[in-house]
């Protein structure tokens, strides 16, 4: 490893130092030029972390659920990483990272690293640095990594690519949730949680989900995992043990059926293609902008005053790129 500062951080990371870990995560967020060097060295290091994704509409209590799970898992002596993702404003680029405030109990626990991240323009529910952060947490020896994602929608399927187990959190009283949730998000849940289960409508929601899962053709396949529904009251610490048992049995299922390996391979492919596509996009834009700024390019596009297809052809011809 060439860079001395980086070597020190990696040493710290591998010895379980959370400070080195969070600093390295920042390097990934900021797209540091040291990343290729960093991941060349980190990649071969295989930890044993179980990565769990938690998604769902805003207001369903994801942060409180994670807070409860942390308490449970810490009682079992596990070392944890938490990645909480919130959206960046498309206008200002700023973000309000409001998940940490719900996990107050754990601020002084050195065996839990809670790391808030902003999406920074990345579409898909996660920050572009999430995968890198997970690799780093895994290399540093975390037993469980919990990822909390932004809301729910068709693009939030990204979490299913990265996490071993994906949990979808719903609550009673959010209207006709099942009908409203489009295909994609309902397909990615390995486990469905009905949180705030003390509220009216909880049983009905469980029944609705069961009916929807009953339509699952995989019932025929004895090898397939049938998603289960778990009721919780996160703030009362209820249902969390059942949830954790279900999560563990999902992981066992993945390991016993060789699915975990397949998933990891698929993830590597996806990650590589993402990186490739980003790099190509950035290089092409650089060439097109030719030293100018994005604002210059935007002005140019407006001045041409033609349909987008023609504008693109013209721009590419001008730049000399044969695409």
């Amino acid at each position, binding site marked *: 490893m060439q860079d001395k*500062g980086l070597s020190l951080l990696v040493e710290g990371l591998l010895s379980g130092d*959370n*400070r080195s870990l*969070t*600093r390295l*995560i*920042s*390097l990934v967020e*900021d*797209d*540091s030029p040291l990343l290729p060097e960093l991941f060349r060295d980190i990649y071969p290091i295989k930890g044993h972390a179980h990565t769990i994704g938690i998604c769902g509409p805003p207001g369903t209590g994801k942060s409180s659920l994670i807070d409860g799970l942390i308490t449970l898992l810490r009682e079992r002596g596990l070392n944890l990483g938490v990645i909480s993702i919130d959206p*960046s*404003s498309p206008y*200002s*680029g*700023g*973000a*309000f*990272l*409001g998940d*940490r*405030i719900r996990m*107050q109990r754990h*601020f*002084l626990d050195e065996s839990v*690293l*809670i*790391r*808030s991240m*902003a999406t920074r323009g990345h579409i898909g529910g996660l920050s572009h640095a999430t995968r890198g952060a997970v690799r780093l947490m895994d290399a540093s020896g975390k037993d469980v990594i919990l990822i909390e994602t932004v809301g729910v929608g068709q693009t939030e399927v990204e979490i299913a690519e990265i996490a071993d187990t994906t949990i979808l959190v719903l609550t009673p009283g959010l209207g006709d949730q099942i009908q409203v949730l489009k295909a994609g998000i309902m397909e990615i849940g390995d486990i469905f949680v009905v949180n705030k289960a003390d509220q009216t409508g909880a049983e009905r929601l469980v029944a609705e989900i069961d009916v929807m899962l009953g339509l699952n053709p995989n019932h025929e396949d004895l090898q397939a995992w049938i998603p289960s529904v778990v009721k919780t009251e996160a703030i009362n610490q209820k249902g969390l043990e059942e949830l954790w048992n279900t999560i563990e049995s999902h992981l066992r299922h993945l390991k016993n059926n060789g699915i975990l390996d397949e998933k990891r391979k698929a993830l590597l492919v996806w990650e590589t293609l993402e990186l490739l596509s980003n790099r190509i996009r950035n290089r092409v834009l650089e060439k097109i902008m030719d030293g100018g700024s994005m604002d210059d390019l935007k002005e140019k596009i407006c001045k041409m005053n033609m349909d987008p297809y023609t504008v693109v052809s013209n721009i590419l011809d001008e730049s000399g790129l044969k695409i």
Partner: protein
Amino acid sequence: MQHKKVRILLAKIGLDDHQRSLLVLSKGFRDAGFEVINLGHFQTPETVVASAIAEDVNAIGLSFHTLTYMGWVVDVCELLEKKKAKNIAVFVGGTVPEVDDKELKKLGVKGCYRPGALMKDMVEEIRMIVLGVKV
């Protein structure tokens, strides 16, 4: 290794129940492009410093509406020193009289904002101090 963005941790320390300042600041800073982690009120110097380090922020903003701020600021600065995290810039605001500016500066506080301070001035100053850039 400098961040590209201002990542600022906001908190109120002690038995100070006024919360609105944190909400106003959160919105103002977010609209200025900062990434804001709000810890809320009833925090301690320990929770503030532990969180700031864990989140790898480059700035801490402490808001006070009581007159016991000095002790808390001293504790936070000493803790940052102890944990070798003096790279995190500390900013203070609220009902902090001018008479304490010198003392705060000696502690290493990089800015103090009083009632009447404009959001845009605060933002510009904080960005300049933390990132070394002017926008």
